[in-house]
């Protein structure tokens, strides 16, 4: 039976506190007569006892230090990855909110092999398109880069971005040996209303981001994109490493587009990871693409 998790903290409430105080005072002033049930103790009866001293070892670190450690942890994770392979599934669905039945517009499955420095091989396993393009470029076309940095997870903690965001502890949960902080981040600049904000779940046992929820205060492209309603990035453990498990996002357009509709979901799921298995060089082709991030390019509609 796992121990109960820390849940939402009880916030002090003036009215609640005042009510408790009044009730307590009333009880004391009323001074009910001694009851006959149970033993009676003398007012002067003061119990004393001795207990062994316990040294509390709970290092206190600042939020900045936690963020530093997470950033370093992410960099260390990246540096320790030598090669990896995974199965990536890209999917686009329409009619995912409101009226209509959700409908799969496109799905592609790829096996991706990566090895440092800059080696990548992508084997396309399946492609489905509801409306295939004549030139062969589909809606869920994948274009992976050799990088293993997973910037979509840690973009707010990147050295060049860190100063652009402010962070705050929103919640924390103690789960066994794991202390999970939920950190709220948002752009420091009020002017950047369309920059992403959201929540990071950080496991301080390894100082790793295990989950992220992203939201946008206002649409980055209001003329066409009404809102990005929900975006979730999840990680999972694969051996000694935390790796990207999936990214899901729901978007709503201002004007319904042909073939797309008004609301659609886009997602990438990553599975079947193998890491640092000494993939042979012969498996790869040389590429000169940038190595900073995994990316998938998705094109909608025709050229």
């Amino acid at each position: 039976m796992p121990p109960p998790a820390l849940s939402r903290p009880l916030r002090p409430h003036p009215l609640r506190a005042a009510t408790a105080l009044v009730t307590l005072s009333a009880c004391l002033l009323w001074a009910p007569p001694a009851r006959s049930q149970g033993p009676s103790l003398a007012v002067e009866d003061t119990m004393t006892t001795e207990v062994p001293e316990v040294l509390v070892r709970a290092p206190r670190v600042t939020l900045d230090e936690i963020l530093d450690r997470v950033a370093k942890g992410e960099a260390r994770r990246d540096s320790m990855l030598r090669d990896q392979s995974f199965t990536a599934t890209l999917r686009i669905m329409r009619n995912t909110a409101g009226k209509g039945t959700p409908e799969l517009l496109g799905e592609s499955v790829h096996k991706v092999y990566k090895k440092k420095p800059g080696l990548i091989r992508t084997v396309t396993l399946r492609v489905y398109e509801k409306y295939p393009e004549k030139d062969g470029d589909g809606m869920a076309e994948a274009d992976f880069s050799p990088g293993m940095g997973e910037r979509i997870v840690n973009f707010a903690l990147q050295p060049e971005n860190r100063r652009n965001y402010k962070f705050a502890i929103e919640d924390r949960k103690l789960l066994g040996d794991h202390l999970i902080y939920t950190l709220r981040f948002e752009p420091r600049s009020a002017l950047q209303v369309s920059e992403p904000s959201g929540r990071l779940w950080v496991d301080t046992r390894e100082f790793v981001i295990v989950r992220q929820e992203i939201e946008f205060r206002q649409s980055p492209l209001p003329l066409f994109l009404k809102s990005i309603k929900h975006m979730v990035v999840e990680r999972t453990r694969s051996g000694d490493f935390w790796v990207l498990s999936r990214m899901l996002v729901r978007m709503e357009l201002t004007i319904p587009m042909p073939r797309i509709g008004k609301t659609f979901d886009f997602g990438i799921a990553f599975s079947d990871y193998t890491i640092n298995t000494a993939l042979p060089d012969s498996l790869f082709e040389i590429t000169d693409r940038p190595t900073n991030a995994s990316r998938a390019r998705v094109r909608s509609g025709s050229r």
Partner: protein
Amino acid sequence: MRSVNRAAFARLLLAATFVAGVSTAHAQAAAPWRAVGDSVARDSSRAAAVGDSSRAPAVSDSSRGPAARDSSSAPAVSGAIPAPAARDSSRAPADSSFDSYMRGLSDSTDTWFGAMATPVDTAGLDSALAAGLALPPGKQQRRADQRRVRLDFTPAPGYNRADGAQLGVGASLTRPLPGRLSGRAMYTTGTKDVIGDGGWDGSFRLGQSRSRLALRAQAGRWTDVADRDSYDPVVTTMAAIVFGGDLHQYLRRDGWRASARWERDRVWASVAWRDQLESALPFTTEWALFGSQELDTNFTAAYGRVHELGITGEVPVPGTRFRVQAGHWTSAPAWGSAFDYNRTLVAVGGDVSFGRHFAFVPQASYGRLHGEVLPQNPFFFGGAPNVRQLDRNEWSGSGRAFGRADLMLVDDLHELLRLPLPAWMPLHLSGFLASGAVWGRDPVTNQALPTRRDWPSSSEWLSETGLTLAWRIGIPEPTSSMRFEYTEPLGATGRTARYTVVYQQPLHLLRMR
């Protein structure tokens, strides 16, 4: 009696406070790391103090020793803090609660996204993988690349009162070459000429660093504007077509230009060289959809071959959200150039937030031209780039200083006031104060003259204030807006209030790219 009750009340309060302290101690003992200032931790501990066991730290209830449970005094409870070994022995497997928590979050995501989150059907994937791996490395990718080896054609239209309509086409070849080869050719209906350019550009990562190097080289015949500091071809062309509101001056440039740009994070620097013959263009076309062109002339550019070196760059101001941009362009006869000048422009701008609702956006620029003052290299003054009380480019000088500060309500008025507006029309309100001056100017013709002064006199400043209603369109930048402005001149300028419509970003003085 009353005094006794007060004493009991005080003891109860002390006891309650103490219990809260005990819970905090438990939390401290249990948590491996805790942030300084972690108010959530303290609040949770208080929750435990009032007897809400569901809010208590995970280890406190299950692992508390008998002494802790039985004791109600401070030392006893303190002593009940379990040793790590004791906690571990009485706890469920370390990761089970963590895993179930993460699984719970993931399940909630599944529920929210529904069918989108369903696992992929793996049937047939193994055989597809075996078939794919049987191919030589890269063959599958190369086949995809080979499909992309093609020319992409795009229309290349344009319109201005010097060239008239520009009718042409552009083409680009992106693969398999590194970088991109592109070109365009346009026939001009006014000057009955063919203009266009061809070139190559590419962007490359420098090693494993975060730095990138972008290279570009082009040769051709261009129609350029004299105001090199502020020109938006799309907006200007639209204004020229629709109501003839194009107030730029045009010149011909023939030759080549090349640039190298390095960037890393928020810092960039660029070096550019151009070898171009500059010449004047006539006024040829007055047509506009509604009316005719506001200007029925085009300026006479100085003729000559210019060899110009330009160095530009941007750095952030440490610890702030302000940026500084600087550019210096120099041309000297020693390099074979017909012109001798040094032109410098510095701009700074940024934003300061007041809560989540207001942004203060100050910005300023300073420009100075030394040497020859040509019609095509001064600092233009007036209109959308700086003071609204003048027409666009109404004045020009060999020095220009300008500052503007906006206080913006960043909330969407559509949501804030519950206005019945469509979602694609987010509106923002702001007020501004601006002041600027141009010097080294002929007071009669308002054209630039050489001067030794590096700062304007007090009488040369023009100041104004106003209100802006901005419709944020988000193209090309998320903050790009159509701004409807009311401007009231300050001081005894003799000018009247104006309404203007401009399309720009809040930090429009930081335009160097």
